């Protein structure tokens, strides 16, 4: 008989969760509830005696100072409420609280309970308020629970059995027989092949299906298959699934590898792989030019890129996206996003210690007030779920979240973008070899460590290679478990230093098929015994075990002679490790279940058999006319409106909920200044506490400019990232980049008529990436693309604006020379660096007026790079008191932020700001203040440093344009006439109000 323990807050004690939920019901759903109380529920199917249940209830699950527990009773019995909603997980969904409850119960009762069943958590919300059942349903479905992973029960106060309480329900996946491996006939019509690909979520094109079919027509292939006892002429389900995963857009980046014919007017150009030409091409050129000063150590070949930090350590970084899962379940999607990308640097080279996280989100407005298209969630719910997922993933893993941003555009309602990045520190040498090298040898054992395998995450790779549609599979959604992962990484770092393994990689998209398949390329083949793999519950078909994307798993190559020591260490640190195969040099990816072959694929066909795509791109500028720059009638109002815009306003609400200083090395935090709320341009972090050497981390992201030209979008992203890093003291000559492209489907098809234009945008963005990185000497070391960020259900199609996130990681020699953006002292001299041009196209200012077309900021690479290198010289000379980059909202925003972050005022003469002429007339105040031209900063300099500063900047465009004032006003003049005097506190309030949740 299942039993329950209910734990409630004692009368008179504060129920923080209840109060928080009540607030969100009122604010997010607009339902005026009076009060919410929370009850934590533990349900178990383990046959525990009454006295054991009493012990667990009274001592283990209940904090007697503030809580009281009920065994198989009813915590709600004597409480006032109108509706009771209980939310628990669906069978098979990761339940971290339940898992911990089970483990802890076992420790308390002194016996291992795991074989006898488990514990499952749920939460009861007792809601007081005058609402009907529909409103209670809305609270459950739209706020408290997600039907893809959770279930809920709603009862009114009169329906509750106050004696027995709620009936105990155990959400357990019933163990079932293992389904057999099936064969699939591919000798069918083309239409049927296409349907097969769709119905099995294979995401393979007809051309690719043909390539697979043709493989099974090969006589040699048939003979080899026959000898293993496999159907000679048909793939098994496991083989087809492995090929679909390995060949997925997600894993193989087919669009980036395709042959493209690019048309601009009548001019046509052939591009032989965007990746080779632009991304890899630029990095190769930069590395060659850097010569002896090349700091790249491992690029594009591993889970993350590696650059030099110092003689003993290397820096590792990777940025991933987790967009599609976050659309369906924001919390679980983002949580797996962050703990997933953690495993990339962890699985790079011989494995690195994780030292920082970054997070960048793109959402629709949280104040969305239109109907929500089917299958989509309200943007506020996505915002809050993603925020919380990254909070739990990052904080619980003990990795500081040091840098990030949130960009808003209505089109991200179709798919939110959730970029998660992680940096690591890798020993430059592991056991006498470079730490970034690894090699699985034939004969090494395949060992899987960490979590167990369930049906979760099946088809993650192929699912994210498709647009979001009515039938997108819910199995792709899962919840991460940071503690299981933390235990595993703690263990593996010890194993690394004991030299117990030869190679390591993570299990992400494609699961074991992908991790073992990639490592087997080193040795030249593998044998996998799927029946050995540890499962969460019985009954998974062999192909599912192979493809499951269950989290918290790493795959290793462990030499036979080390295996006993490896397992002893794993056991002592409470980490599960299992031998699931061995690496061979057979040339085949062979898979067995109960000693019967279920898959045999030649390594060459698996990795190189994919036919290339041939695509057409056609560029046509969408800009039909240039719009007039609106005049400002009231400057106070204009400043406040721009400062309050979603893309400009303070993100403190999110930043504060992320631990940005665990590990003790923070130097420039996300928030800075006199009141600790100024927006830092970039993060600086000391990963080694005994030295002042530091890491700088920044990023650039400007999707709005894609509406004019994706070239400018990408060029500005690179420039913004570099600008941000230089502003805090980053050295422009020791920086590496990471490119993450998130696009809307660029493959033209009848249901995607503007695919050729979107591909042209992609080509242009790549060219900008090439031009900018080469000009700045910033090699890309790792990247990722996500190409199907569209939503289509019924007639509604939403495509995201083409988006490039450019992340930067660099080395700073002496962190004590870093600079923050807040004005420091009245009397300091105000400088404007760089040229302001009338570039307001797609600016925040235009957007505020519903306008779009104008000149997008054009990045002047040479001019900017000179400025950045000389600015860095000034930083090294400790000449600068504050420095802030100009981006969204232009000079107006940067001035206001500099002033209020310093809790001081600024005076500025606009006529001194270096600006160009506009058709023979000087630029208007609106143009100077709101243009978003690249390559600019606001800097303040102590009077005694003015000479040194100006000397360091000689030859660059810069001007002394005002000063820092004690009186907290932003006073802007134009020559002799006053333009405006704005109280800094008012500007700050406008900037802070928007997202003050």
């Amino acid at each position: 008989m299942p039993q329950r323990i209910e734990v409630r807050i004692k009368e008179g004690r504060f129920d923080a969760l209840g109060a928080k939920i009540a607030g969100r019901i009122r604010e997010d759903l607009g339902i005026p509830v009076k009060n919410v109380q929370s009850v934590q529920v533990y349900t178990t199917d383990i046959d525990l005696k009454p006295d054991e249940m009493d012990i667990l209830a009274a001592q283990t699950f209940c904090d007697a100072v503030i809580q009281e527990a009920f065994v198989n009773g009813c915590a709600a019995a004597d409480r006032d409420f109108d509706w009771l909603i209980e939310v628990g997980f669906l069978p098979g969904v990761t339940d971290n609280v339940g898992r911990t409850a089970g483990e802890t119960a076992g420790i308390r009762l002194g016996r291992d309970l795991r074989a006898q069943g488990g514990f499952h958590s749920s939460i009861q919300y007792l809601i007081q308020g005058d609402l009907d059942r529909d409103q209670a349903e809305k609270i459950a479905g739209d706020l408290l629970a997600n039907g893809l992973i959770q279930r809920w029960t709603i009862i009114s106060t009169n329906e509750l059995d106050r004696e027995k309480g709620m009936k105990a329900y155990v959400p357990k996946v019933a163990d079932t027989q293992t389904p057999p491996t099936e064969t699939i006939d591919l000798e069918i019509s083309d239409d049927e092949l296409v349907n097969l690909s769709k119905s099995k979520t294979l995401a393979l094109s007809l051309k690719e299906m043909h390539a697979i079919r043709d493989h099974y027509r090969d006589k040699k292939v048939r003979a080899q298959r026959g000898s293993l006892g496999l159907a000679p002429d048909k793939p098994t389900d496991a083989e087809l699934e492995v090929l679909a995963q390995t060949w997925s857009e997600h894993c193989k980046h087919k669009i980036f590898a395709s042959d493209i014919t690019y048309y601009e007017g009548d001019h046509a150009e052939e591009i032989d792989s965007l990746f080779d030409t632009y991304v890899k091409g630029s990095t190769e050129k930069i590395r060659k030019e850097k010569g002896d000063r090349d700091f790249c150590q491992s690029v594009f070949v591993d889970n993350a890129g590696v650059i030099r930090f110092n003689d003993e350590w290397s820096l590792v970084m990777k940025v991933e996206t987790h967009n599609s899962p976050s659309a369906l379940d924001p919390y679980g999607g983002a949580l797996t996003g962050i703990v997933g990308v953690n495993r990339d640097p962890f699985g790079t080279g011989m494995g690195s210690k994780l030292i920082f996280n970054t997070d960048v989100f793109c959402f629709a407005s949280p104040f969305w007030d239109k109907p929500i298209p089917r299958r989509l969630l309200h943007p506020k719910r996505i915002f809050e779920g993603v925020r919380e997922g990254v909070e739990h993933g990052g904080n619980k893993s003990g990795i500081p979240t040091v840098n990030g941003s949130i960009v808003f555009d209505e089109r991200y309602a179709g798919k939110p973008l959730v970029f998660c990045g992680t940096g690591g520190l890798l020993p430059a040498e592991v056991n006498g070899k470079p730490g970034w090298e690894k090699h699985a040898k034939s004969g090494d054992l395949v060992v899987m460590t960490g979590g167990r395998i369930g049906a979760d995450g099946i088809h993650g790779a192929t699912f994210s290679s498709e647009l979001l549609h009515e039938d997108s599979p819910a199995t792709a959604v899962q919840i991460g478990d940071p503690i299981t992962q933390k235990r595993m990484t703690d263990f593996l770092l010890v194993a690394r230093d004991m030299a117990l393994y030869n190679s390591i990689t993570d299990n992400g998209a494609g699961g074991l098929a992908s991790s073992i398949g990639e490592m087997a390329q080193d040795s030249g083949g593998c044998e996998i015994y799927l029946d050995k793999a540890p499962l969460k519950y019985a009954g998974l078909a062999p192909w599912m075990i192979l493809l499951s994307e269950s989290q918290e798993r790493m795959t290793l190559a462990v030499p036979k002679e080390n295996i006993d020591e490896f397992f002893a260490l794993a056991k002592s640190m409470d980490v599960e490790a299992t031998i699931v195969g061995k690496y061979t040099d057979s040339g085949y990816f062979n898979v067995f279940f109960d000693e019967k072959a279920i898959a045999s694929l030649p390594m060459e066909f698996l990795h190189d058999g994919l036919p290339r795509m041939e695509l057409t791109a056609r560029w046509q500028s969408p800009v039909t006319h240039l719009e007039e720059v609106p005049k400002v009638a009231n400057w106070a109002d204009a400043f406040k409106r721009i400062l309050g815009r979603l893309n400009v306003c303070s993100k403190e609400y999110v930043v504060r909920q992320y631990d940005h200083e665990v590990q003790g090395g923070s130097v420039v935090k996300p928030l800075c200044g006199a009141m600790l709320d100024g927006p830092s341009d970039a993060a600086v972090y000391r990963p080694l506490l005994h030295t002042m050497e530091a890491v700088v981390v920044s990023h650039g992201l400007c999707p709005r400019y894609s509406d004019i030209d994706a070239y400018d979008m990408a060029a500005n992203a690179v420039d913004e990232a570099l600008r941000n890093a230089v502003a805090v003291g980053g050295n422009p000559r020791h920086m590496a980049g990471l490119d993450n492209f998130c696009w809307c489907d660029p493959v033209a098809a009848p249901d995607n008529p503007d695919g050729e234009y979107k591909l042209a945008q992609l080509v242009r963005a790549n060219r900008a990436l090439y031009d900018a990185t080469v000009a700045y000497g910033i090699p890309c070391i790792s990247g990722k693309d996500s190409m199907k960020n569209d939503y289509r259900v019924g007639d509604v199609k939403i495509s995201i604006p083409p988006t490039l996130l450019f992340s930067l990681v660099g080395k700073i020699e002496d962190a004590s020379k870093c600079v923050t953006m807040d004005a420091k002292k009245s009397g300091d001299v105000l400088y404007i660096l760089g040229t302001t041009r009338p570039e307001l196209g797609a600016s925040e200012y235009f957007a505020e007026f519903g306008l779009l077309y104008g000149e997008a900021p054009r990045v002047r690479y040479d001019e900017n790079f000179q400025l950045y290198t000389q600015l860095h010289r000034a930083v090294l000379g400790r000449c600068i008191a504050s420095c802030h980059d100009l981006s969204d909202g232009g000079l107006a925003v940067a001035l206001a932020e500099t002033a209020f972050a310093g809790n001081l005022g600024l005076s500025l003469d606009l006529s001194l700001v270096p600006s160009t002429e506009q058709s023979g007339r000087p630029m208007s105040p609106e143009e100077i203040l709101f243009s978003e031209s690249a390559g600019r900063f606001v800097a303040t300099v102590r009077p005694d440093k003015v000479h040194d500063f100006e000397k360091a900047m000689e030859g660059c465009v810069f001007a002394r344009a005002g000063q820092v004032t004690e009186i907290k006003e932003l006073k802007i003049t134009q020559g002799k006439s006053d333009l405006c005097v704005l109280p800094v506190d008012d500007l700050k309030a406008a900037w802070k109000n928007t997202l003050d949740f």
Partner: protein
Amino acid sequence: MPKIRSIIISGNGVNCEYEMAHANMMAGADAADIVSIYELLAGKKKLDEYQFLNLPGGFMDGDDLGAAKAGATRYQYAKVEGTGEILSDMLKRFIDDGKCIIGVCNGFQLLIKLGLLPAIDGKYFTQFATLTENDRGRFEDRWVRVSYDEHSPCVFTKNLDVMDLPVRHGEGKFVPATMDIYEAMKKKHLVPMRYVDEEGNPSEKYPANPNGSIEGVAGVCDESGRVFGLMPHPEAYLHKTNHPKWTREELPTKGQGLRLFENAVEYLRKA
């Protein structure tokens, strides 16, 4: 001079062991060993060989049953191989031997839930209070100002005035089981550290008091003064560049958080 060996317990969700070890070394400890709780449970490392026990912050067992709740069960019931003891037995002996224990954040929550703090009248392993969810119902990372009770027996906070330190927690609100207990704590000066406002007065107002603790309770000690737990993270302020205002204020190079560790090491040297 006696050697001061520090042990910093890691594993199972502990996160701040690295900077904690660094703090101990900077403070002059002769050794600062990061030891996994699993090594202790396996009997491979012995608590008895150390003088200064550090329980760092983190999320033991994910704080899934409430902060440090599952962790406390492990300390109270998991057996140490080869000795028949549990970890709590060793902790008690550690205290009886006149040694020092500091618990920061999750480590403080552990000490409170194990009943090692405040241990009024020497009643160890009795839970007199708890640390629970912040009034705002959310995790926050922010710097706060704390001040110290000069009359407290706490050896860690001797001769300290006010300092800024970061808090990074979701469950830091100190709640005594009864007001009598709290009055007894006050009488015995077992609250050596409080959140204060700009005027330096103990505060119950957010954000000076980040969690709603009664009268700004930020840290608690036992009557010996050698067991001390606190929500703020002194190990996250070891260098001036950790301070969020280091680019705008003149600050000493050594971070002030170090003072707590220096006091403990100095005390143990003299003991």
